[in-house]
């Protein structure tokens, strides 16, 4: 009887401890310093374009418009938009330093979300969504009680040494749960995405030029086996993250793989801010014990500590020099006002559209009439060869995809010719023609490739009917030659089964 009562109670107790156990929020403090810094990198770049992206003198396109809700948010005049934008940047810097932390987040976070929602085309992305969540959670968290200007000022004012404050961990847990949800949701998306597990989707992304340069990604895009394996590994990790990250040893796998995954998105996909946002949020998974252990492991920690503490100490000393009758909120507001006015002046000096400069406004670039007319009046359909991404020959297939490229074959081997198609395409009749060195046709095989197909394979048994030598595998679509690959046949003809069918497809 007692065990049946203690079961639910024990569960409630463990849930309670999960959210309300107390520790010093070093991890949260790291998130407070790193995440707004990462989130502000793209926002600082956009500071030069506030007038164009977020004001009535530009072309903001609100997120709500994309969902058919019209313009829900107010759009400010250029000067006011610049002032408010400057205020947001200052509030975030102030939050990083932990000076009036709660107030800074209360002002900076809504403004960050506002400006992101105001420009759904050039500002709002999923990394801004993740940053918005974490910023909101930081706003309600006690992230400023350690490693902050506020904490330094408090300590100097009260003269208290002693151990740092301990607070319930629920706000860290919320960030952790957010990431578990993100990965679980992302896995569901991938499972629902057609052609994810055959690697085509990953390939299309890697050869898209929508993000920053990713030469390694372009190289990996041509390696189907890497795409296939990494696709499965990613989904398995994303699904298992929530079940392992709160386990003693599981967290090393969940967070270690996650860190590697996010770092690799830079060279493979050309992402820059997304990995920074995610990696900085990972600090929320660091417990007090983890941070203390890491501190002990850090070589030359005294020097590092001094270096990291320097901006906080300097800011605290500067603040302490203010006249004693000026309260801290007033000081914060005064500095914010100076920054806002500076931003306004900056916008004026910038003369973004070049209206006040010499010869302003700037002229439009003229186009050659021939080029313009060709673009406007073009009715040329896509070339037959452009419907095909690639054509290769090899001998090994994994998940339907050819995973090796081979040019030398021996009797008895199965040659597999495979073409990858670009969608959308119509239903196609695709042929593979085997020619000898003098372009005499030896075999022809063909098949319908329907509109939803992303690849088609043509197996060809290399039997004793062929003589040793060089041959060509020619790909044709709608009777048009698309591509050809040369291969050589060698070895002992006796190895080939004489009863092999000519074409095995």
């Amino acid at each position, binding site marked *: 009887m007692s065990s049946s009562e203690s079961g639910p109670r024990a569960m409630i107790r463990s849930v309670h401890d999960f959210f*309300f156990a107390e520790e010093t929020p070093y991890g949260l403090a790291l998130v407070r310093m790193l995440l707004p810094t990462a989130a502000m990198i793209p926002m600082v770049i*956009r500071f030069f374009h506030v007038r*164009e*992206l977020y004001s009535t003198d*530009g*072309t903001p*396109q609100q*997120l709500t418009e*994309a*969902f058919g809700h019209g313009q829900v948010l107010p759009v400010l005049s250029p000067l006011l938009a610049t002032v408010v934008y400057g205020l947001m940047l200052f509030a975030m810097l102030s939050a990083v330093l932990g000076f009036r932390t709660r107030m800074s987040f209360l002002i900076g976070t809504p403004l960050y979300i506002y400006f992101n929602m105001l420009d759904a*085309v*050039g500002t709002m992305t999923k990394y801004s*969504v993740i940053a*918005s969540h974490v910023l909101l959670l930081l706003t309600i968290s006690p992230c400023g009680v350690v490693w902050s200007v506020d904490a330094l000022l408090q300590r100097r004012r009260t003269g208290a040494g002693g151990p740092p404050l301990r607070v319930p961990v629920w706000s860290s847990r919320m960030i952790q*749960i957010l990431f578990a949800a*993100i990965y*679980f*949701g992302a896995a*569901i*998306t*991938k499972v*629902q*995405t057609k052609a*994810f597990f055959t690697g*085509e989707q990953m390939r299309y*992304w890697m050869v*898209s*030029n929508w993000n*920053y*340069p990713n*030469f390694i990604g372009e190289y990996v895009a*041509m390696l189907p086996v890497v795409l296939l394996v990494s696709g499965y590994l990613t989904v398995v990790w994303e699904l298992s993250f929530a079940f392992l990250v709160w386990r003693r040893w599981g967290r090393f796998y969940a967070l270690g793989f996650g860190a590697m995954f996010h770092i690799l998105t830079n060279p493979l996909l050309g992402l820059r801010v997304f990995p920074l946002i995610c990696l900085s949020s990972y600090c929320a998974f660091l417990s007090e014990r983890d941070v203390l252990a890491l501190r002990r492991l850090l070589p030359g920690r005294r020097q590092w500590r001094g270096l990291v503490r320097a901006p906080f100490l300097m800011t605290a000393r500067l603040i302490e020099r203010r006249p004693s009758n000026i309260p801290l909120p007033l000081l914060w507001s005064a500095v914010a006002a100076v920054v806002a006015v500076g931003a306004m002046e900056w916008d004026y000096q910038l003369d*973004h*559209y*070049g*209206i006040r400069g010499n*010869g*302003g*406004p700037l*002229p*439009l*670039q*003229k*186009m050659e*009439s021939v080029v*313009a*007319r060709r*673009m*406007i009046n*073009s009715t*040329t359909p*896509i*070339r037959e060869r452009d419907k095909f991404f690639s054509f290769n020959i090899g001998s090994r297939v994994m998940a339907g995809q050819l995973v090796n*490229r081979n040019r030398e074959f021996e009797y008895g081997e199965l040659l597999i010719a495979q073409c990858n198609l*670009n969608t*959308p*395409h*119509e239903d196609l009749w695709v042929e593979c023609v085997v020619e000898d060195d003098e372009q005499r046709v030896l075999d022809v095989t063909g098949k319908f490739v329907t*509109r939803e197909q992303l690849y088609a394979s043509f197996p060809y048994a290399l039997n004793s009917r062929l003589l040793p030598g060089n041959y060509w595998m020619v790909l044709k679509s709608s009777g048009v030659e698309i*591509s050809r690959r040369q291969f050589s046949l060698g070895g002992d003809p006796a190895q080939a089964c004489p009863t092999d069918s000519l074409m095995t497809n």
Partner: protein
Amino acid sequence: MNIRKWAVSVLLMSYLGFLGWGIVGHALKIPAAGSALGYFVVWDMFCGWQAYDNRLHLIAEDSNGEYYRIREPWGAFQPFGHEDRLDYDVSNFLAPRHIQHVLEHSEHPPVDRVYVVQEVWGKQYNIPDVLWQKYYDEPKDKVSCFSLRAICTPDGAPIESNPDWFVAQELKSIADNPRLRQQAQSAMPYYNTFFSPLSANGSQMSAQTGGSPVLNTN
């Protein structure tokens, strides 16, 4: 538990519910999750990529038949790489505003009309030359397809619009089937405004409710 803990518990439950709504809504394709609020809890970072790359060109024509490229002369903003902001506008909501905005802030003769042209090419041509030489035997011969997406007035209002190239390709791929084409030609879909069960039942309803019969406004 004290009030503070209760408040935190309510907050936690609400937040978990919000996150859960996004995941379930997205997994089951519930339309409510496809809203601006849903965007904050739907994790579709990898939701599919096209096999063809595409860019949008805005070409202004003046009364003398001269053509101008409508691109910010003060420098186009490139938000996430080396492509202009306009090229990230998948919904095409931005193009009309962009036309009006650039024309208003630049020097040019009076513009008669603006052509919105979509350029499309296979993504295999994005591969660097060194990789092309390694993986392709054919010379790299990129040829773009151009498709007139719309014709607009200088204030961005559309005079004529055509389907997006990708949509057009999909429609063409289906219409390419002669049997479907014949059936579509012989079919005659229409909406019946001559008769509806409600209007046929109107007099009966009117007698029951004592009101006037319902008018069919089709």
